[in-house]
């Protein structure tokens, strides 16, 4: 239950970090908050020769409001984002999802970039980023590139990042007024990895849904965004019939895998229940927001 011996590198600037990854990326791993990586190291499921700890690169730990949304540096701790007024008011889906991640001591160390680059399809943040069409910024000594969320998650624990690339920031688009969000998940115990999770965000104008975003976690190798369900919701008042149809559509399309924690049938059933629950909450919050009573944070 101790990691294999490795070389630990602790760069202080982004350039140093990128040089180290160019040299050691192929047999190395980036260490952010370590809340996913260190368990893997302790179990020796990961056996990197080099670890590049980016925790001292101050420029990666910045969360800022921009003209188009909220940009979160990869090293921003989940607990910091959870307490951020900018996240609460401009990125309500992220705000709704964060308290569901593990337990407070994990969120005190865990980072947004670390969780996203880990790419666990049962985790909360990949689902949020996919639902919101977040943009991932990756840097290497070869340059910088932007990766849309839809192309970032490749399969279980595999992302579009190359071995020499570092995820530096994630850009979440701001929400329009009249937007509400909700995150619902079910696990054996609070803080456990969810069996199924649903991220939902709807924007409402004159009582009708103008934009709907839904993403499920825990039902496939990547976050699963049912666009047909989003289309079903647009233009409706998200009444009981529509929500029930949406839940049924999700149950028919998802293909979760059963394991010792839950059968595939159970996960499929719960996906529908959670979708209905998250959609109702998101819609009601959006309506209140549209009425001028901005309760998105509540």
């Amino acid at each position, binding site marked *: 239950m*101790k*990691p294999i011996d490795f070389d630990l590198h602790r760069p202080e600037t982004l350039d140093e970090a990128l040089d180290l990854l160019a040299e050691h990326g192929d047999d190395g791993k980036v260490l952010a908050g370590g809340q996913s990586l260190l368990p893997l190291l302790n179990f020796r499921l990961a056996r990197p020769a080099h670890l590049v700890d980016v925790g001292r690169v101050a420029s990666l730990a910045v969360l800022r409001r921009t003209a188009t949304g909220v940009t979160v540096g990869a090293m921003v701790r989940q607990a910091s984002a959870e307490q951020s007024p900018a996240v609460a008011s401009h990125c309500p889906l992220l705000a709704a999802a964060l308290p569901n991640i593990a*337990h407070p001591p994990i969120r005190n160390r865990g980072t947004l970039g670390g969780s996203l680059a880990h790419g666990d399809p049962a985790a909360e943040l990949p689902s949020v980023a996919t639902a919101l069409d977040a943009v991932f910024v990756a840097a290497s000594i070869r340059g910088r590139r932007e990766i849309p969320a839809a192309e970032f998650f490749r399969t279980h624990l595999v992302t579009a990042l190359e071995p020499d690339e570092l995820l530096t920031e994630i850009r979440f688009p701001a929400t329009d007024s009249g937007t509400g969000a909700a995150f619902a998940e079910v696990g054996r115990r609070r803080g456990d990895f969810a069996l199924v999770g649903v991220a939902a965000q709807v924007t409402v104008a004159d009582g009708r849904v103008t934009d709907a975003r839904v993403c499920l976690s825990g039902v496939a190798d990547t976050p699963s965004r049912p666009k047909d369900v989003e289309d079903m919701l647009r233009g409706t008042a998200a009444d009981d019939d529509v929500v029930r149809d949406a839940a049924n559509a999700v149950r028919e399309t998802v293909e979760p895998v059963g394991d010792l924690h839950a059968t595939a049938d159970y996960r499929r059933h719960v996906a529908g229940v959670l979708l209905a629950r998250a959609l109702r909450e998101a819609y009601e919050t959006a309506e209140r927001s549209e009425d001028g009573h901005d309760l998105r944070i509540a």
Partner: protein
Amino acid sequence: MGTRHRVQLTVNGERRSGDTAGRTSLADFLRDTLGLTGTHLGCEHGVCGACTVLLDGSPVRSCILLAAQADGHDVRTIEGVSPPGGPLSPVQEAFCETHAMQCGFCTSGMVLASEALLATTPHPDDAEIDEALGGNICRCTGYVQIREAVRVAAARTADDERVVVRD
């Protein structure tokens, strides 16, 4: 051999330092290098909470934090919760009075998580207590007495008055 690192940090108010391998966890550094064995290692993969210490005042799992990552930071362990020889802190007193421990293996982590909670939330409700301690697993006492201990400590710390513990 992997890289070696000089780690300097403040532990329970004292400047401490040591040389250690890059792969050494803060928990192993505290126990093996600094001799502070009050920090217990249960699962060693961040699930059980036994190894909880306070890093710059916030609870963290010291088994999934490298010692090198704690370089330059402030760490508080169970040894720093009350002075040697006593008196115990209000949280520790309350754990004793409410029988909130049995084998004691999880207690260091439970006490530190409780101390951190009361430092930021002097009057926690049950939901807040559960959220703060939910990541700390106890396998023998059960959680009812532990929650009771936090309530008692909160009432005592906040109001500075004795609280009668129910039989």
